[in-house]
């Protein structure tokens, strides 16, 4: 039986006695005759409440914590839309190229880094069918923001009054959030019975106030928007901009390119499609690419080549900077290595192999009792969303329960909170890196859980049992009288200094 480590590890504060001095590292000292003379008015008054420990204690603490955590190196993480593929170890060689270089160094001292960035810009443009890319953005959502701001500035430059951003209801939750951050009114486009953009609704909604449409293709249901050329025509007919959310690019990489479908702007999540380790939720890395006139609005700088030297350039109508320097270059180079290792042959296989894996899962799971699938006749691309509503109706077991039961068996769970249009969603994304043997094991495990849900639903509701902790109390975690976002809050509450979070 699978079991996760359970160390009952105290908080780092509780490991330190605070009575005896301990040191985890020696600070280098120079014999320099300078007096510290900070103005009284700004000196820190209160003693720091930071624990003191030896190096071993610190290391042992965090290694124990690491053992209570699950990553791709431990097992399959079929999190839909998150593209949790294997991160090849060779990527770690990259640190030498970028780690010790300051972002404000002159171009002539970092030609190696700039050459890598230049190649990546070109390759990303090639893979998306765009004209130019900027590596400014530290993560996907920042790419969306950049894209929407580009749309905003583009219309403003043309003196067009546009205040509505269309967003498909199958979109990631970040799309409407990014549009709203840029001051747009968000108009949702409902999907039809097949899970695709409803063209009739789109036609009705599009008007002279439409700034653009934010879409991902394949969408979050894993379905390819087969009417994409018509959608593109409708949006362009009112001078709107078609924006591509690259979070789902994995399923079509090498098969079809957003640029050829009529998209004008694309963001890419390099950490997803190009296997940068996700680090527990970050750092990621991204790129924002554009076509035609819109490329002049990209965030700066862009790396260019002039007379054999790499230089930084600012597009003429740039929206400005999304990050203080060049984005998460330390991760851009990890993605670069992924592309080097796959080569043109391998990169061109990514969409095929991830789509093959998804449809293989579907073929084995589509008739399982308790699950249902929207438009089962349609092939999926990167991911598939099953609904566990039949199981809920039959036995009162939820998608959340299934997720927890999977954890108990050594798998991470599918995405279950999204998309909102599928009730009791189980959004599964296998990626191209999971071996067929693992896919088979996952299929078998999920089937067992569903069978057990019908036999003994209470047992499934009691999961997880084999993880570091059992099911957690979310009400307590969020209640204004008990919500505790730091040790400081715990301390101050015990002293009666702070009370309810009003």
């Amino acid at each position, binding site marked *: 039986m699978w079991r996760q480590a359970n160390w009952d590890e105290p908080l780092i504060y509780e490991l330190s006695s605070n009575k005896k001095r301990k040191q985890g590292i020696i600070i*280098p*000292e*120079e*014999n320099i005759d300078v007096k510290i003379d900070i103005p009284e008015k700004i*000196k*820190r008054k209160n003693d*720091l409440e*930071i624990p*003191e420990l030896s*190096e071993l204690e610190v*290391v042992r603490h*965090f290694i124990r*914590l690491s053992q*209570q955590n*699950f990553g791709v190196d431990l097992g399959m993480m079929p999190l839909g839309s998150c593209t949790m593929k294997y*991160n090849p170890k060779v990527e770690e060689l*990259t640190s030498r*190229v970028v780690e010790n270089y300051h972002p404000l160094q002159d171009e002539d001292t970092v030609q190696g880094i700039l050459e890598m960035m230049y190649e990546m810009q070109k390759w990303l443009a090639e*893979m998306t069918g765009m004209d130019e890319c900027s590596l400014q953005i530290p*993560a996907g959502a920042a790419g969306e923001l950049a894209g929407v701001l580009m749309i905003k500035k583009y219309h403003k430059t043309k003196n067009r009054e546009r205040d509505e951003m269309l967003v498909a209801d199958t979109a990631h*939750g*970040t799309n409407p959030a990014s549009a*709203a951050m840029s*001051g747009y009114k968000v108009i949702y486009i409902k999907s039809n019975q097949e899970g695709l953009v409803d063209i009739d609704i789109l036609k009705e909604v599009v008007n002279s106030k439409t700034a653009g449409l934010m879409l991902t293709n394949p969408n979050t249901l894993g379905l390819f928007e087969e009417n*994409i050329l018509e959608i593109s025509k409708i949006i362009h007919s009112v001078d709107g901009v078609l924006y591509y959310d690259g979070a789902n690019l994995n399923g079509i990489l090498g*098969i079809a390119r957003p640029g*050829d479908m009529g998209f004008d702007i694309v963001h890419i999540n390099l950490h997803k499609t190009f296997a940068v380790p996700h680090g*527990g*939720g*970050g750092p990621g890395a991204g790129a924002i690419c554009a076509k035609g006139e819109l490329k002049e609005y990209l965030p700066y700088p862009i790396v260019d080549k002039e007379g054999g030297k790499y230089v930084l350039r600012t597009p003429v109508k740039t*929206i*400005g*900077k999304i990050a*203080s320097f*060049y984005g*998460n270059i*330390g991760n851009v180079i990890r993605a670069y290595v992924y592309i080097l290792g796959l*080569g043109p042959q*391998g990169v061109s296989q990514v969409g095929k*192999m991830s789509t*093959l*894996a998804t449809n293989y899962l579907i*073929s*084995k799971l589509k008739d399982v009792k308790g699950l249902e699938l929207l438009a089962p006749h349609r092939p999926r691309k990167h991911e598939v969303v099953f609904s566990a509503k039949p199981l809920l109706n039959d036995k009162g077991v939820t998608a959340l329960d299934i997720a927890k039961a999977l954890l108990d068996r050594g798998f*991470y769970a599918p995405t279950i909170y999204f998309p909102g249009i599928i009730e009791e969603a189980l959004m599964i994304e296998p990626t191209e*890196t999971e071996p*067929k043997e693992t896919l088979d094991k996952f299929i078998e495990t999920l089937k067992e859980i569903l069978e057990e849900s019908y036999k003994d639903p209470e047992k499934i509701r009691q999961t*997880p049992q084999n993880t570091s*902790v059992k099911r*957690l109390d*979310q009400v*307590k975690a969020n209640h204004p009288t008990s*919500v505790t*976002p730091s*040790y400081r*809050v715990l301390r*101050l509450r015990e002293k009666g200094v*702070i009370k309810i*979070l*009003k």
Partner: protein
Amino acid sequence: MDYHPWLPNLDYENEMIREIGVNSIDDLFKDIPEEIKLKRLLNVGYSKPLSEYEIYLRLLELENKNTKLRMPPFLGGGVCPHYVPEAVKFVISRSEFYTSYTPYQPEISQGLLQALFEYQSLMADLLEMEVVNSSMYEWGSALAEAVLMAYRINGKKKVVIPASINPYHKKVLETWTYGKEIKIKEIPYTNEGKINLEVAEKEIDEETSAVYIQQPNFFGIFETDIEEIVDLAKKKGAITIMGVNPLSLSLIKPPGEYDIDIAVGDGQELGLPLNFGGPYMGIFATKWDGKLVRQMPGRLVGLTTDSEGKRGYTLILQTREQFTRREKATSNITTNEALMAIANAVYISLLGKSGLRKLAEEIYKRSHYALLEFEKKGIGKRKFNSDFFEEFTVSFPISYGKIHENLKARGIYGGLKISDNDAIFCVTEVHTKRMIDEMIEEVKKIVETS
């Protein structure tokens, strides 16, 4: 291509196709219109898949195209070179952390959640603010998010910033607030390089949404009139935002002691390499006030118990997020810099209370020593007569560009040029006394021979 180490199912194609019940992989793409299908290989990478050794050689080639320096650069601008302890690198390389994802399933992600809770807690104590999120991208975007948050709270569109703000952060602020049409007003600095209080009094008015203070400011100078600015802001109902260098906070008053509403900063100086601009680590904190906490962007980890009463950790207050709130969310951020937050937590834990203080003192001493030496040698003078930390501005008798190019030719990277004769130098614990002396000696030669 028949086999590839990262594509394990190439040889299973036919078997899997049969199971699916289609004739070929192409059938799985029959919903893609023929005219948009790519009918060639992508022109990326090099002509073939590179072996690990070939990748190594390519990276070595790139590495050799960067200039080798004799010592760490004396270059700051809000990002300073520091020594990263091996224990920090070791912990964040643990693949259970490194290859994990946002902890949507807390029971199987306790290690990450506890480590992030500890980051939030250690940073809260350093800042003396109660709520710290589990990271933003970097300082610039954290500041932009703070300004957008102030706008969400009070609906006003004017933000007041000091002219001594880090200009790279200012650029990010301008871009991110473009969509909401927020107006940015600058308060000039005095001859001492500090915020001009008289102008601040005029600029901070009833229309002001937020007032930003950077401590120490872009020139490395400690602002000494923070209480006064905070008072002005409070009288006019504006939200106060303070940008901090967390490394300086064991010496100087943290934002909490000024009763600041929102604190931002970068954790880069707490255990992260320069990384040519990223990944860095955006700090975002608020005081204990529901109005602020509920508008806070980003993720928060909190304490709770499991079904057996055992302590556990989980993401909290998620109803603020794009996850459920979509266009009404407090921000669009999902991927953050979680691993970098863990690096910060390990770094702070290794140094502890006394180590943090000692390090700050050592940096203070070395940077002051360097400035004094420039003056003693008669080759540079301080531009501002104010106390500073880590970075300082020097005025040279000749064009700094000339000094810079000559230094570079000798394998030394000097400060950041801010005008013809002025440059900001950054000196930290990675610059030994010998390196500082050598750099100054080289500058002396350059100044004297021109």
